[in-house]
């Protein structure tokens, strides 16, 4: 009988080992807190926090990356302050006060908001910038940035007038001011790239094949027409502007994280975290499931 029990127990253990791993907190039966007669164990609290397991793991990895590559220094602090000023200006245009909007978002002070949100977001943007500087060659091959002057005209007549004026020597900015809808484009050069929303997709596609300096007119929706002029196609000649345009793309942010995660080798030992990580960064896992 004893032998039978031993064999059964060993078999159960063997089968239990066949399940995907799920990392558990230590001392899981310890009481996290009590409310009256009810006790909540660390395990119960950890189970309730399950939805945060993946984002918290990424957050820990991110902190490690930021500490290594983007330390907090005067430059970062300056950028954080600039961001803060911009956000305050934006909020001032609405009806809610800055203090109230901080309170609504759950922050006790401006300092807390800076620390918990802005510092991290500025550093993350800098990390993407670092990636783009490192992988600039591949980036421009993939996203093909072009620098163009563009204006939006309300109708074809205005678009034709703008083309003539520019071809006769008028600056693009002045032509945009005179014939264009300046709320759309001011006439200053913009950098458009594959998948960007800086200009209409058909304008970008046309610009890829256009000659530098040539003024081109394109029909938009309704009576709208666009007039553009390619300023530069060789992104190495406007590298800084190209990086600035590319760094705000979420696709490129994910690409940057995939790059750093691959560099730093990520192995995962928890199925919940594994599945989420695999969905977002499929090529960055150092310990793929053995098949």
């Amino acid at each position, binding site marked *: 009988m004893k032998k039978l029990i031993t064999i059964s127990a060993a078999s159960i253990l063997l089968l239990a080992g*066949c399940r995907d791993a799920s990392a558990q907190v230590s001392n899981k039966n310890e009481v996290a*807190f009590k*409310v009256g007669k009810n006790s909540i164990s660390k395990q119960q609290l950890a189970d309730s926090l399950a939805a945060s397991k993946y984002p918290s793991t990424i957050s820990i990895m991110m902190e490690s990356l930021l500490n290594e590559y983007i330390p907090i220094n005067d430059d970062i602090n300056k950028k954080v302050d600039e961001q803060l000023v911009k956000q305050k200006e934006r909020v001032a245009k609405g009806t809610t006060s800055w203090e109230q909007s901080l309170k609504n978002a759950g922050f006790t002070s401006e300092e807390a908001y800076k620390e918990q949100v802005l510092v991290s977001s500025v550093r993350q943007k800098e990390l993407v910038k670092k990636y783009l500087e490192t992988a600039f060659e591949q980036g421009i091959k993939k996203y093909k940035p072009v620098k163009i002057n563009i204006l939006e005209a309300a109708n074809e007549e205005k678009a034709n007038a703008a083309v003539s004026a520019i071809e006769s020597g008028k600056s693009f900015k002045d032509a945009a001011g005179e014939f264009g809808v300046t709320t759309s484009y001011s006439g200053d050069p913009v950098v458009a790239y594959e998948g960007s929303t800086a200009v209409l997709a058909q304008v970008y596609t046309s610009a890829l094949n256009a000659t530098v300096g040539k003024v081109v007119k394109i029909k938009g929706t309704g009576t709208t027409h666009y007039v553009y002029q390619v300023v530069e196609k060789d992104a190495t000649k406007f590298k800084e502007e190209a990086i600035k345009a590319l760094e705000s793309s979420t696709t490129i942010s994910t690409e940057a994280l995939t790059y750093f995660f691959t560099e730093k080798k990520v192995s995962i*030992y928890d199925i919940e975290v594994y599945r989420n990580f695999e969905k977002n960064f499929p090529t960055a896992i150092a310990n793929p499931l053995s098949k």
Partner: protein
Amino acid sequence: MKSMLKKYWYIGLITAILLVFLGLFVYNESSGKLRGKTVDGKEIVAMFNNQNISADQVYDKSKESTGTRVITMLLVKNMLDQAVPTTPEIKEKVQKSKTALVENYKAKNPKGYEQQIGDAIRELGFTKGFSDLEDYLTITVKNQILIENYIKENANTYFEKIDEQKGRTVSHILVKYPELTNEEKKGKTKEEIAKLQETKNAENESKMKAKMEEIDNALKSSSFADVAAKYSDDTATKSTKGSLGYITSKTSFVKEFLDAALALKKDEVSGWVKTTYGYHKIKADVVGKDELLKDEAVKAKIIETIIKQDNTLYKKAAAKAFEQYPVETSDKDVQKALDAIIK
């Protein structure tokens, strides 16, 4: 031994076959499975940049970042379980809320409503998502009861305002001004529309006066409620026989109407009161704290009004309940969540 083997050889063979099958089964089941890792007794979630990230580190991170909502839910749930025990009435209310909520989401998103609701409540720590909906709604229903109980326990503080604010239930009969059609309003400025409305009102004045006379005559022989049900142009209160429910000096009605309604004594009926909507005849149904609180439906309405007017009530009610069911913890994140609930 040899003789034993000779005699029971088939048992050995069966055992060997079973072991081979068990081995193959285990091999098959474990291939493609994620292996765990433990270092110094701590289970590891991930390794990054040659550093182990333990489940304990992830737990602490979760608590300090997004965990406040989850901890708050657990604190409140456990307090409510003791302060407001589940009754059949609560279960019924939960079912009603569930039906209404599900129908609402289903109408907007017929295929993905369960996922949508599940995702929203999973964020609050309800790990099973949609199937935890009843638990979530039980907390919202019990929270409401907690506040209502707090008001009843502190009746002197809260109900004394009824007389201060001239609390009463009122009914009205409306003879409405004619409405301008979209066609009449088309292409006109606000001022032009106002002028056109005035002209139309004047044109209809005699017709409206005739209806008001008819109502006055009807009131001589019928109750206010019956006349309201028959003659009132207010579609919203026609079905309640003109009843507008509980009002106070803080109710946001047009000034002329509110002034007239608050000046009435119990059962008194006003003269015709002119407002931007038309002409109203108003009756004060129940006046004064003692009379109002006798009616449970009115009492519920009064409590609803008090809750709307005082947004600190939940904090007060929760603080009192947590005094009775105190929280014991050494975890700073739990303490932080508790402070946010009651302070």
